[in-house]
């Protein structure tokens, strides 16, 4: 093998893109040639250096949830009209159907799956609100400012109370998207921690105790015809305390 020929094939050689027979011939040449041998070694060194020196870029966690969010919005916008108009109704209908044709077990399985999905969307939304610049659409500690802001923007009219004196100041509210539907999110703080409360139409499934998922505390309760999902990175006990205060204050 001539040097010129060998040089032209060095990249393919170090990249492992060479048939075994040609590889053997080239390897023999490199072993015996005082010019080409070091050349191949230098090329291999460069490759090692690149792998060591180049930063490893990874998608930021916020981007992942932003994309999920954008996909849901996209799917909702392009989906069948039933999806936009009445996905809740459609879902309820599918559960009823499952009850009619199946067993109680089916009902439970379907119900749980929806709970899981909502829980995971609630956490995604919470995360997004922390990482983005979009914590609130309406920033106010005044419940009489926050509550009316949702009128006309959402089907759901959430009860809003300020709990500053109890250590959970109201920060504001924003419109978020859960299951492809715009829903009100109330934003509270516990010291430096944010608590997001999502208010959805009730679905009558109680999660019971405070769940911890992916490092976030999550509580879910139904009140009247509304379903509340509270999520925070503060301690689970603090979220439980928040729920008691919030429920007591909104009942009165």
């Amino acid at each position, binding site marked *: 093998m001539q040097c010129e020929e060998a040089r032209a094939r060095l990249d393919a050689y170090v990249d492992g893109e060479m048939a075994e027979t040609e590889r053997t011939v080239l390897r023999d040449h490199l072993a015996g040639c005082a010019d080409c041998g070091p050349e191949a070694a230098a090329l291999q060194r460069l490759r090692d250096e*690149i792998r060591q020196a*180049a930063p490893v870029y990874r*998608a930021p966690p916020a981007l*992942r949830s932003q*994309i999920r969010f954008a996909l849901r919005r996209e799917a909702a916008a392009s989906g069948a009209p039933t*999806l936009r108009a009445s996905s809740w109704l459609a879902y309820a209908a599918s559960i009823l159907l499952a009850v009619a044709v199946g067993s109680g077990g089916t009902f439970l399985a379907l119900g749980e799956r929806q709970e899981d999905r909502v829980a995971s969307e609630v956490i995604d939304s919470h995360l997004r609100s922390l990482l983005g610049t979009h914590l609130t659409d309406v920033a106010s500690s005044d419940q009489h400012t926050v509550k009316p802001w949702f009128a006309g923007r959402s089907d759901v009219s959430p009860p809003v109370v300020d709990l500053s004196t109890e250590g959970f100041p109201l920060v504001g509210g924003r419109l978020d998207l859960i299951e492809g539907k715009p829903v009100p999110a109330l934003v509270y703080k516990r010291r430096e921690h944010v608590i997001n409360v999502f208010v959805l139409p009730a679905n009558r499934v109680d999660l019971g105790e405070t769940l911890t998922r992916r490092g976030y505390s999550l509580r879910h309760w139904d009140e009247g015809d509304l379903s509340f999902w509270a999520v925070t990175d503060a301690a689970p006990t603090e979220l439980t305390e928040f729920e008691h205060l919030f429920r007591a204050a909104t009942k009165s």
Partner: protein
Amino acid sequence: MAWIAERRRRSRFESVVLPHLDAGYALARWLTRNDADAADVVQEACLRAFRYFDSYREGDAKSWLLKIVRRSCYDWLERNRPADLVPLETATDPDGGIHTPSAADIDTEALLQSRSELRRLDRLIEELPPPLREALVLRELQELDYRQIAEVTGVPIGTVMSRLHRARSALRRAWDGKGCR
């Protein structure tokens, strides 16, 4: 029911495509050379991919996503930083070496910063013209083989080989020339 089909399509898309999000982001980051721009481009690319998802056939999902991310990067660069897209033929170095950005490209501060960091190999990679840069990044950092690189960048395998060769030669010249290491 249409909404169930739509939900199923979305969840299939997420399970096929999102595992390769890091790879997509890394390519976009190397091509846009900026975190925020890379994130914008990747999000746009994912929505684009979702729209074209019906055209995806079982197979190499990573290459499929990278191809769309790459296309989105070039579209974005064309709109926002056309100066980055110097055709290979007119790059300062006929071998496709490190091109010197025109004055319009960069402000003085960025230039000073880039000079002080010039030693760094990753900065040298960033200064390669995009066609050489992407070939190198896909090969060395994403560990794609020639056939996959050809698929992602839409050129014949012979072109992939010559671009890789030019990228490495340019890096070695720049690196040795500046007395790095």
